[in-house]
């Protein structure tokens, strides 16, 4: 209780707080996308032949695909030949401690309020900080290594654990899965890799902070998390980006594999630059996130989305094993001219599989927020259950909320429930708060926090603090 109240007291300032640019020299590929660029990336990263083949196969798939247009979003189609597909901070030398990290980079972390130093000392969160596609510093690795946990950048995993990468890469999201996933599979530069061995419960939250730092650099992150039998991991992903005029494309792929009796909790805070008041600039976020659940396993996605100009994202669970469980908790905030088409897919294949979808959309100003979800219960998934709740909160008269639920049930013993509500933030509620001495911003924050509480409760505490601050910043000045 006390901590919840503390959160509410922390009212932070307006505008896009994280809009600054760090000048770190980078080494980038020429603009454009072709097989040579892919070979360049692969060579730069000193990759084995099979991975180059994987990339090329994905690229050939991608060339034949069309950019999807079924989502309820409008944006100028990116020119894929006008982007740099590789950029890396110039490496000076191997780093032994934080003292050796580029002071400018440390300063960036200070501004974000996530100094590695502090993270290390105070919170016990191991941070794999990704700046412009290449991991700069990984902490806590040694401690995790004692338990046999591997937590490193994706490129390091390719070098150090090629057998694991080869075994699982593309097993949940195949290289030809969709337009953006294929693109990512062809050109991804880095990301995170995590492996939890059998029977191990990861003792700390694993956290990755993403940043997009270079103008005109497409960001193609690749994340692979494998929880071996009877293991557990809680994984946090959070991001902020500097203010920019150009549109920045982001097409990440996240694959989760939960083997028998394993559990993965994957939490995301997404706060990319949403564009200015006229809707100019801002990040395009086209992400494919999917988890595969084997027997008795569980995957839980929690996301707080406040950023990006356009979001296209459907974290999903394939419940392949009997008795497996999939969960999706989401808060998606759109303000100004932001557009989001987001939701979840729950594919029930195993018997007695259960899934829960709790989606809370908030639209303010001229924004459009759509929930799109699929619950598929296959013929063999007997006695399966799904519960879906999608709520929409509207602030003002010019925003929109839309719901597109798809439900497919192929057997008679399963049960699917769907609830949906749309409400407007009430003048009466705001007046009531004001009459008790709160100003309008406080009142809105309080009401919104109440609305999203069910989802924020799913986040680890430190993350919930950050999420709440982001909600406050995102909705500042959106009513009245």
């Amino acid at each position, binding site marked *: *209780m*006390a901590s*919840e*109240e503390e959160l*509410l*007291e922390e009212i932070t300032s307006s505008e896009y707080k994280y809009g600054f640019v760090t000048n770190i020299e980078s080494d980038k590929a020429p603009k454009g996308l072709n097989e040579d660029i892919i070979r360049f990336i692969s060579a730069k990263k000193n990759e084995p032949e099979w991975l180059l083949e994987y990339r090329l196969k994905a690229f050939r798939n991608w060339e034949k695909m069309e950019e999807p247009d079924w989502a309820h979003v409008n944006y100028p189609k990116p020119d894929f030949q006008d982007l740099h597909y590789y950029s890396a901070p110039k490496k000076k030398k191997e780093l032994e401690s934080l003292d050796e990290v580029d002071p400018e980079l440390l300063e960036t972390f200070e501004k974000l309020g996530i100094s590695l130093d502090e993270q290390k000392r105070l919170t016990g969160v191991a941070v794999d900080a990704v700046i412009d596609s290449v991991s700069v510093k990984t902490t806590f690795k040694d401690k995790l290594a004692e338990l046999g946990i591997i937590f490193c950048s994706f490129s390091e995993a390719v070098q150090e654990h090629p057998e694991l990468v080869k075994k699982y890469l593309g097993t949940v999201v195949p290289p030809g899965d969709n337009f953006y996933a294929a693109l990512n599979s062809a050109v991804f530069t880095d990301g995170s890799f995590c492996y939890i061995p059998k029977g191990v419960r990861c003792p700390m939250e694993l956290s990755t902070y993403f940043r997009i730092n270079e103008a005109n650099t497409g960001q193609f992150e690749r994340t692979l998390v494998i929880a071996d039998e009877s293991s557990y991991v809680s994984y946090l992903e959070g991001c902020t980006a500097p203010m920019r005029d150009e549109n920045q494309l982001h097409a990440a792929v996240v694959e989760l594999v939960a083997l028998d009796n394993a559990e993965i909790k994957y939490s995301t805070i997404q706060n990319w630059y949403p564009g200015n008041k006229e809707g100019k600039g801002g990040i395009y976020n086209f992400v494919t996130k999917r988890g595969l659940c084997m027997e008795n396993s569980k995957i839980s996605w929690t996301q707080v989305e406040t950023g990006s100009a356009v979001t296209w994202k459907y974290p999903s669970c394939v419940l392949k094993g009997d008795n497996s469980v999939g969960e999706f908790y989401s808060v998606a905030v759109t303000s100004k001219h932001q557009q989001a088409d987001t939701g979840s897919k729950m594919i029930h294949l195993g018997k007695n599989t259960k899934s829960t979808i709790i989606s809370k959309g908030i639209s303010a100003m001229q924004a459009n927020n759509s929930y799109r979800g699929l619950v598929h219960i296959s013929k063999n998934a007997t006695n399966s259950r799904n519960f879906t709740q999608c709520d929409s909160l509207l602030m003002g008269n010019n925003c929109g909320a839309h719901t597109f639920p798809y439900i497919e049930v192929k057997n008679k013993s399963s049960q699917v429930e769907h609830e949906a509500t749309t409400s407007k933030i*009430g003048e*009466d*509620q705001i*007046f*009531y*708060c*004001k*009459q*008790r*001495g*709160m*100003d*309008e911003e*406080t009142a809105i924050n*309080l*009401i919104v*926090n*109440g*609305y*999203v*509480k*069910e989802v924020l409760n799913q986040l680890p505490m430190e993350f919930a603090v950050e999420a709440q601050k982001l909600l406050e910043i995102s909705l500042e000045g959106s009513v009245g």
Partner: protein
Amino acid sequence: MIKIENLHASIEGTEILRGINLEIKAGEVHAIMGPNGSGKSTLASVLAGRDEYEVTEGSVNFLGEDLLELEPEDRARAGVFLAFQYPVEIPGVSNINFLKTAINEIREKRGQDPLSAKDFLQQVKEKSALVELDGKLKNRSVNEGFSGGEKKRNEIFQMAMLEPKFSILDETDSGLDIDALRVVADGVNKLKTKDNATLVITHYQRLLDYIVPDFVHVLYKGRIVKTGDKNLALELEEKGYDWIKDDAGVTA
């Protein structure tokens, strides 16, 4: 404490208040009675600063300040409290969190440090006993799923916590059974000091059996048409409002 002079207010072009004059001093309890549609709740809303109402004429001086110039939240911070006729529900926000947010924001604006968790909880304990508020309600979402009586008790609990100088009770008795009415009235009486003042708006006399007013005013067609002591309330109970209407008709 508060001096209302020639107050006129309208909503969507219809004039509801047509020249209210009323002065309330510290330590006093005033009651406003009147038939439906006479402007009782409008007066409460205008004093609290609801922006649907437009003040077209007159002034309200509250402790030396022009109350009508203040935003609703600044009025609250200055010490004006409105116990709502229809308390609003705020799903997902616990009652206690709501109050702590309000209290600490008021303290901040007054340049005071936030209340420590210990002091806050101590106050919650004392003040909730005052209105016999069920312990469970403190952690429930603000007014969500509360019965009518619980909502009204919660208003008085909030009033106790916020320690206003001037409280307006807008039909706090509506929808209460006799036991709840007694508890709510008891709470109000216990909170009465020589330094604060209360304006009780009610349709029925029975609340005034428990909260004894120093003055009773009858509001009719947007004006105070009669003022007396508590006996006026009894007279109204007995004779209804018609004789007032006739009187008003003659003098209007």
